[in-house]
Every structure is written in C-alpha cells, then in structure tokens.
C-alpha cells in the first residue's frame, strides 16, 4: 500500500498565480493599485477598498515567526511527529501558515519573533509549497 500522502492543494483560477509563483521559486502576494493594501490569501479584489484593480508582485520572502504549535498527535498524513505548524508574518504585512525547515522542532529552537526566509519544497511537478527557514545573518 502507498504511503499516506500529505494534503495537496488544488489551485483555483483565483489562486493559480500563487502556485505558479512557488513553482518558479517566487512567493507572490497581491497589492491594490488603488489603496496599496497588501493581502493574502489570493483573490482578484482588494479586501480593504473593494477595488478590482490589483497587481501580483514578488514578495521579499522575509518575515518572522508569529506563533506555532508543535503537533504530536494525531499527525497529518505524510508528516512525522513532532512537527511545527507555524504562522509567519511576512515583511509586507500578511501572515501565512507554513512549516519551519532547517531548525529543530522544539520550543527552545523555535523562538517567537525569530527572523525567517522563504524556501520552496517541491511536492510534485505541479505543486511546490512555500516553507520557511531561520534567516541567515
């Protein structure tokens, strides 16, 4: 029997640019052309002023650890516990859920507010996930 698979995102027309971005090694956010509000998750209008004129841009990929849990049980399919489920606050403002790599999954190593930078984890030919690692320097 095949190993249980990690949950795999299925893009919609509104989110395709985000998943195209991660595949190309870019973390893409959206900014409102009218009021400059930056937001996530993707949608083709501004959640602040309702304008439909919005642009996709490449984010810096920098952020900090806003909060997390270290999940022990039950573990999601495709994950080996314990593993951290993190919320990262991006330099551009929005927050996103992710995982922290290249770092022990312990309360001692995972310090709130630690600086992070984006990395990309290929799931398959179509989907690459944005994950984060402790920032260098």
């Amino acid at each position, binding site marked *: 029997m095949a190993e249980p698979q*990690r*949950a*795999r*995102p*299925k*893009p*919609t027309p509104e*989110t395709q640019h985000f*998943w195209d971005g991660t595949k190309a090694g870019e973390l893409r956010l959206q900014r409102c052309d009218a009021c400059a509000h930056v937001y*996530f*998750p993707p949608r083709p209008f501004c959640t602040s002023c309702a304008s439909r004129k919005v642009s996709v841009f490449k984010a810096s990929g920098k952020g900090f650890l*806003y*909060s*997390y*849990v*270290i*999940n*022990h*049980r*039950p*573990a*999601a*399919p*495709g*994950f080996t516990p*314990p*593993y951290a*489920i*993190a*919320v990262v606050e991006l330099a551009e403002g929005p*927050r*996103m*859920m*992710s*995982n922290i790599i290249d770092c022990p999954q312990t*309360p001692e190593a995972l310090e*709130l507010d630690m600086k992070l930078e984006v990395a990309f984890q290929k*799931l398959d030919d179509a989907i690459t*996930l944005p994950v984060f690692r402790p920032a260098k320097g």
Partner: protein
Amino acid sequence: MRRNQVAVVGAAETTELGVIPNMSQLQLHADAALNAIADAGLKLCDIDGFATAVETPQQVCHYLGIKPTWVDGTSVGGCSFMLHVRHAAAAIEAGLCKTVLITHAESGKSMIGKQPRFTAPDSLNGQFEAPFGVYGPPSMFPIPVLRFMKTYGITHEQLAMVAVVQREWAAKNPRAMMKEPITIADVLNSRMIAYPFRLLQCCLVTDGGGALILTSADRAKDFPSKPVYIMGTGESVETPMVSQMGTFNSSRAFKVAGPLAFKEAGIAHGDVDHLMIYDAFAHLPLFGLGDLGFMPYEETGSFIADGNTRPGGKLPINTNGGGLSYMHSGMYGMYALQESVRQMRGIAPAQVPNAKISVCHGVGGMFAASGTIVFTNER
C-alpha cells in the same frame, strides 16, 4: 432586540451523555428534542419553528414529524446554537413563529450516522492550511496561544489551572465525564498533543445532544418550569482560517458578539453572576475574559489561577465542568446553554446561589465565529 421578550421554556440534554454506541446522530437529535418537549409539557405539533446545525432542518424536522413555518440552518460551528437562540428570539418577536425548538446532537465519539469532516483541496483552507500538517482541532485551535502568552505574560501553569478548576466543578456534577481531581502537575505531565497544549488542556470527545424550546415571554409563565429570559444577544464571524485572524492577541468575533450582548442586555460586568465560556481548549476562557471586557488580558491568567472562577469564587465559570471535563461532542455550545438555563432555573448540580444573570459565550470553528447570550430569571 428588546430585552426579556422571549424565554426558554424547555431545556434538556440527551438521556445519556458520553459514549452512546446504540444511537445514531439523528436519533440523538430526537432523544434530546423529546426530552425538551417533555420538559416544556408540549407536544411535537406545538412546535412551529425549528433550528439546528450540521444536520439540515429538513432532515431533523422530517425525522421528528415537525411542520415548521420558520427554520434556521445556521451552521457556524459549536456556537451555532447561540446564534439560533438569537435568531429565534427575533423570529418570535417578528411573529414568524410562536414556539421554536433548537436541537444539537453529535455522535462525536461513536461516529454513528455522522459524516466525517472533510477539507476540500481547492478550498482556501485546503490550499493554504491543510498542506502544512493541520489535522483536526488540536493542531489548529492552539496555534494562537504562544503569541497570546508572550504578549500578556501568561504562564503554562496558569493555562494548566484552567483545567484544574474546571475539574473541581465537574466533581460536583454526576453527569460529568471526568470527575477525578487533578493538579497542575497532572496537567503539565499529561500526554503532549500540540505544544504548548497537553491532553488535559484539550476537550473531551463524546456523544450526546441537547435541545431548547423558546416562546414569547408573555406565554412563558404558563409553562411548568421557571422561565429563563433572553436578556441580550450578539453574534459575529471572522475567518475559517486560524492563520488569517486579524491578531492572535484577541478574537475579533468574540469582541463583536460579547459587547453586543452586554449592550442589548443593558448590564455591566459586575452584574454577571454566572459565566460560561466555551472551552474547547484551555486558552478560550482567557480570550473570553479579555474580549468580553471583564478585565485586561494580562490579568486573565492570574484571575483563574488565583481561584476566582472555582466553586465559591467571585465569578463562577464553566460550572458544569466545561468541554474539558463535562462533555464535548464536537459542537459544545448547546451544553454551555443548557448549563446557563439550569443555573437560571436554580437546578444546576453545582448551583451558584441566587444567580440572576448568566452570560453564555460560544465559539465556532477555530475562533471563526462567536455567539453570546445573556440570560436572566427576572423579568
């Protein structure tokens, strides 16, 4: 909405609570409904309004043989029943129906006749949370806790005391699932579930249900039980994605719903004799105390750790033992409402002496939704 125009005249839980392997989820709805009908001295044909969550109104109405002129299928998680109470009170006041039955039931443990929860891979949750290993409420609901603790200086011991105090209340309740006393050390040494939370800081998983019957306050005096009036109500939603909450230092849905209910009731915090704050996990009473404006967030941990919410304390909270020790079938809001009604009727197993005002505050999803009801036994 005008205060005290609608009252609870029937309230009951399922005959059994806990592990009920001989009943489907739909039959648990019926068991709770029939118990509430009997409590109110009514017949099923007297019910002309109906509300429920997860199961559809048509499903439960057909099963029970009810022919409603008003239904509400609001399904926003565990606080759906608070919203049903609010909507039912408005419907009764507007003359859309006279006698509303609200049911909840969940075969949360035995999983009989219950659809498993499913996150579609093309939903926003499916794309932007599920791939990172969230798997059920214990992996999601505690995600804000570490930020909340850091911001306000809340300690692990204070969060452990939430479970300790609620077990003290549960010990007084014959129907509580867990009654053995526990200590802070017991909590902090229990099995790790999702750091920082351990087993005893996570809700139970049980089977059960409950039902309420509401009618106009003018009719309420003709019923067998002491009427429990709806004094104030509030509701709101924020986001189905815990990662997208505006902040982890509070809940926006709580901060909208709670103050709305207080304002409508025309009460101050010092007027509250009894408080229920839906405790799926140990941090919720702290968020609730802060978001409802009882005290600054920094004081919520010490307020509970110092014993203010335990039996004999100045603000009794979660007097049935809560979702941590009483029962938690998955959508606990109905059981919080049942305990508020018992306290207002004066028949709770751990009765708060002379309680006249009870606030019942619920959460849906992972801080996704909220509903608050202020009850009183004086018109």
